[in-house]
């Protein structure tokens, strides 16, 4: 995967436990409001959507705007219901797309 992302979450959790997930995607998040030295606008290039699915079911979704800093960090939580995979997907301008999958064991 060309687009670098970092996701941190516990590898194991107790059933019903609330786990915290921290995600970081490598992206410049060009706002579209900056100008070059010759006065031309630099076109907007940002990550616009982020989705987290837990065993296929969506548990968290976010819409990002140019006011999110470069290398967008999103931290949220979910309830550990069953063992399985968490799938993360970032999409954005210029067909930007990054995915990451993490497995979790629930005991």
């Amino acid at each position: 995967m060309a687009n670098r992302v970092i996701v941190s979450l516990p590898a194991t959790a107790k059933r019903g436990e609330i786990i915290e997930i921290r995600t970081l995607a490598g992206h410049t998040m060009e706002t579209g409001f900056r100008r070059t030295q010759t006065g031309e606008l630099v076109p907007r290039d940002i990550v616009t959507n982020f989705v987290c699915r837990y065993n296929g079911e969506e548990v968290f979704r976010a819409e990002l705007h140019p006011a999110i800093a470069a290398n967008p960090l999103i931290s949220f939580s979910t309830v550990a219901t069953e063992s399985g995979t968490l799938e993360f997907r970032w999409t954005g301008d210029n067909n930007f797309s990054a995915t990451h999958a993490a497995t979790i064991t629930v005991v």
Partner: protein
Amino acid sequence: MTTRRQILLLACGALATGAQAQLTPNIAALRRAALDEAVRKVLAGAQARPGRVKLDLPPLIENGNSVPLSVSVQSPMTADDHVRAIHVFTEKNPQPNVIAAYFGPRAGRAALTTRARIADTGTVIAIAQLSDGSFWSDSVQVVVTLSACLEDGLI
């Protein structure tokens, strides 16, 4: 006859208007209107009450390009009573929206942390939509010393 005192007063007046022209009232008013419009779109006719939402970000921001921002909402997060969405807005950015996050009962906790760009000293607002249709909000006044998007002379 023009006295020295009058000339001094005139000069002071000219300086004062020069300082105001840095941020034309037009841009400030436009951004205020854009913020009101964005908030209205989220509320869709409802009223946001203060409380239950906690917006946490440093009151003094040295670098507006990356500001740690977290929002949490008091909610049991059950199927009947949970937070549906959290919206964050800023007053002085070229675009008021910062982030919109959507939750369900499976989130466990209605909390979100991210890093934002904040253009200038002003208000940051968080609005939470609950599953019963009510809206709650919190706002924080921040002071920005080095603002985001200033290097291009935008403001």
